[in-house]
């Protein structure tokens, strides 16, 4: 039985996001992300990590098989973060062996099958299920009409061709079929892999389009970040006071910028914290800023905020450009000087990213394409090493199965059809 995971709260809203993992590997997945798990049915605060990277500090709950909603081992992560954190946690789970994203309705089905829900209860969920079915149907329809479907069908066509060549050498050895299909198969796979890579890199953008881009305002305490945020958002979102360190946690404002969904985040001022609570705030701010799609770095007196090293895509501005005129572009939340220019600049940077496009917009789709790509790479390695045909074929079959999720079923009949139309089979 696979272990499944999914975000079980609505997407893209601020506040708490719950990611649920259910199945035999749930505990192992929990351990992989946060080390020791709390004992069953208790909640505890844990730091979630992937490799050395901290993803979030979250409340973690654990339920044992037989005493959980699905009847299986369940681990729940109650995350604080916005979309980027959720995406990072889902990504970390995807990397745990034995885990895959849940299909719609799958948690419910497991609950039902394990006797955790009566028929009446499931039927009571009828509306919900119907909605889910409907939602999935709509999504599938969209996928079917859309560019992703065309891409997936293109991949499917190439992979069926590759599979047919290989299967012909397996099932029809006795016949007049070409023996050395390796180079042709390899070229077909390479084409698909390249294409998939491009789509995967576009995934982040597509996801942003749906969930919003994060733009972080970074700077030393009291450099005017909150004032700038309020000005950009056109309302009082952050409490502004002149006392350094007022913004203890992360403040987010969602706004529409030239048609793009943008979440502005104001992080705690970056400096050495004097008390432990503030230290947590500073650390969290740093992480969020790091994960953001774009950073606006405010410089005061020509000094970068502590520990910040701007990358080429970041916007570096002189803070409080109202008071002291100086070198370079500046901005002032208080007077509004330079704000329009800043907004324009953000919009143009983000728009440029969107233009790259991305057909893969859902985590489920991403996981499918990612899995397919991995299998195809393994098939190519197999070909290079002269591995037996049925193992290479197995990888291609796996990849086709993964693509199935995107473009409807792939049937062995299609592979056989390709074989029979290309080769004259029949002693």
């Amino acid at each position, binding site marked *: 039985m696979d272990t499944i995971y999914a975000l079980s709260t609505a997407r893209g809203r601020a506040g708490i996001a719950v990611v649920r993992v259910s199945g035999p590997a749930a505990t192992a997945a929990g351990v992989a992300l946060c080390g020791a798990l709390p004992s069953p049915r208790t909640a505890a605060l844990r730091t979630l990590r992937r490799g050395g990277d901290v993803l979030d500090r979250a409340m973690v709950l654990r339920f044992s098989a037989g005493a959980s909603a699905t009847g299986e081992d369940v681990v729940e992560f109650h995350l604080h973060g916005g979309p980027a954190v959720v995406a990072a946690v889902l990504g970390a789970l995807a990397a745990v062996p034995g885990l895959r994203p849940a299909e719609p309705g799958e948690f419910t089905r497991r609950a039902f099958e394990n006797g955790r829900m009566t*028929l009446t209860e499931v039927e009571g969920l009828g509306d919900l299920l119907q909605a889910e079915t409907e939602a999935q*149907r709509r999504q599938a329809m969209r996928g079917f009409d859309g560019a992703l479907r065309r891409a997936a069908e293109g991949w499917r066509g190439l992979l069926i061709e590759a599979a047919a060549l290989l299967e012909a050498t*397996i099932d*029809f050895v*006795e016949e*007049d079929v070409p023996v050395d299909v390796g180079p042709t198969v390899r070229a077909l796979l390479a084409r698909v892999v390249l294409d998939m890579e491009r789509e995967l890199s576009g995934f982040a953008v597509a996801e942003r389009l749906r969930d919003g881009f994060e733009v972080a305002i970074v700077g030393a305490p009291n450099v005017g970040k909150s004032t700038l945020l309020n000005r950009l958002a056109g309302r009082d979102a952050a409490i502004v006071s002149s006392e350094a360190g007022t913004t203890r946690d992360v403040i987010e404002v969602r706004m529409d910028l030239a048609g793009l969904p943008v979440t502005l985040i104001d992080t705690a001022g970056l400096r050495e914290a004097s008390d432990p609570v503030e230290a947590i705030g500073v650390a969290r701010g740093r992480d969020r800023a790091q994960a953001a799609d774009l950073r606006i770095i405010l410089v005061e007196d020509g000094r970068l905020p502590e520990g910040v090293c701007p990358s080429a895509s970041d916007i570096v501005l002189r803070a409080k450009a109202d008071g002291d005129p100086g070198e370079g572009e500046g901005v002032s939340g208080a007077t509004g000087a330079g704000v329009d220019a800043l907004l324009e600049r953000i919009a143009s940077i983000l728009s440029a990213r969107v233009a790259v496009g991305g057909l893969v917009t859902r985590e489920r789709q991403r996981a499918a394409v990612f899995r397919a790509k991995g299998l195809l790479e393994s098939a190519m390695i197999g070909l290079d090493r002269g591995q037996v045909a049925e193992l290479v074929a197995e990888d291609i079959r796996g990849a086709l199965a993964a693509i199935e999720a995107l473009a409807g079923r792939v049937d062995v009949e299609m592979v056989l059809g390709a074989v029979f139309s290309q080769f*004259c089979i*029949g002693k």
Partner: protein
Amino acid sequence: MFHVKQFDVIVIGGGHAGTEAAAAAARMGSSVGLVTLDPAKIGVMSCNPAIGGLGKGHLVREVDALDGIIGRAGDAAGIQFRLLNRSKGPAVQGPRVQADRSLFRAAVQDLLGKLSGLTIIRGEVVDLVERDNRISGVVLADGTSLGARAVVLTAGTFLNGVIHIGDVSRPAGRVGDAASEKLAARLAALDLPRGRLKTGTPPRLDGRTIDWGRLERQPGDEDPVMLSFLSSGPVVPQVVCGITHTNGRTHDIVRANLGRSAMYGGRIEGVGPRYCPSIEDKVVRFADKESHQVFLEPEGLHDDTVYPNGLSTSLPADVQEAYVRSIRGLEQVRLTAPGYAVEYDYVDPRALDRSLAVRGIEGLYFAGQVNGTTGYEEAAAQGVVAGANAARHARGEAPIVLSRTESYIGVMIDDLTVRGVTEPYRMFTSRAEYRLTLRADNADQRLTPMGAAVGLVGAARLAAFDKKIATLEKARRVLSARRFSPQILASAGIPVSADGRSRNLLECLGFAAVSQETLAVLEPEAAAIPPEAVSQLRREALYATFVERQASSAAAIRRDEGQALPEDMDFGSIAGLSEELRGKLMRIRPANLAQAARIEGMTPAALLLLLTRARRENAQRARA
């Protein structure tokens, strides 16, 4: 009223499906009546004199694992053994034998003769005794009635069979046999969905008139691999086959006479297989190919007939002679029988459930070519399942159903009953999703225990199987007893990556080069393991990682297969399903959740709706 002879199971037809069905039911202790047109023809091979091959060899091994007869008969008659796909891994290797026709027939009849409880009856079944959708016997052409609790119909290519040689057509089940028209009419009255299919066979040649010296030869394997788990080696002398090729002149002759071909002249409506095209098809569909291979296969040790594999046709006899003689080595050849095509009725297998019982008619089972398949092996495999289930039905026991995750038989029956056929169905390894686990070499490990549990497998085979398993278990214990570091393994000559991970010798077997001697260097006890056991563990080790990857999805399919959907489920009234899905469900009528899951466009949430509905209906039924 006069006495009607009563059986548990009656099997109609003595082809490969019928013999396996009768034998299976008899092994399970049923009293069986096998009714066939000509008992002397039991065990006849209608077409090519060969058993096994890719996919087909897997089926033969599975039938053998269930103690069937095709494998043993094939070995007894084997005049050339070849394991196909030797250069690839064991999952896609298939054993094949060239069989001496008369020896094969004798072996089948001999094996049948040894079964107690089996009566062979000469006759033509013209009617089924049916009341209230329940079968209770058959009626023969001479008026005799025979009673039975279950009937297995395996009439092959005989139902409304018509054979075509060029512009000459006549009713026949195959050359030399009358067609079965009354039975076909009876089935029509039962209102079963039917269709027409066709298949063909090449002319036969007199081997004494072939110039063998000018032909490429194809010998058998040096170390023959048997079809049956119970056989140890060939028992009759071995022969060599020949290979030749068609040429431009052959194709010209065929092309010039296409209008006289039964198929291209429009006299055949049935659909033929894409993978076994006639010479007419080859010339038309692959017009740019200058030459096609022809295998010349001797039909027996004391028979000069040669089967030219690859020359199937429905051209007139004189054209057949002309194009055959245009081929190298066959210039002077004499044709002993013309090739022909046969067209016949088949029953849409979607009318059957996975036990091969006709839905809605109690006690009636169908197996073999009537279900739209082609090939001896496909027929035999269905025969075992239908025969065993007929026997169980006669005893009031629940049917045996094989999963597509555990056998090619399961794959075939699932394909047939869910998808139906558009051309004669033949097995290929590519049809099996779990190809790496469903190997010919482990068919016994997969199926014999189940067969023994239901009484299909006799004591002798079970004893041999138990011994083999004990040997394997012991070997596994010896080889997994200790773990060795990469350095130690490398020093013994086992090339593993220096990743610091210790491994046992079982894991190391996957590395092709590791010999038994090498294993014995690290584990002295390994020297005493029978080489066959080492080979078997090696086959398992080769795929170990892939098999793990598949295990959970296979388990999910098996679980879904276990979730039966009520036969009369009203798919139309399930709220929350899209219109499109509802329509598909109503048309396909999946028997379980796994079949429903394979319907195109199916969603997990829709499956959940199906599941809850099924549970509710079952619960209501239990209360009623």
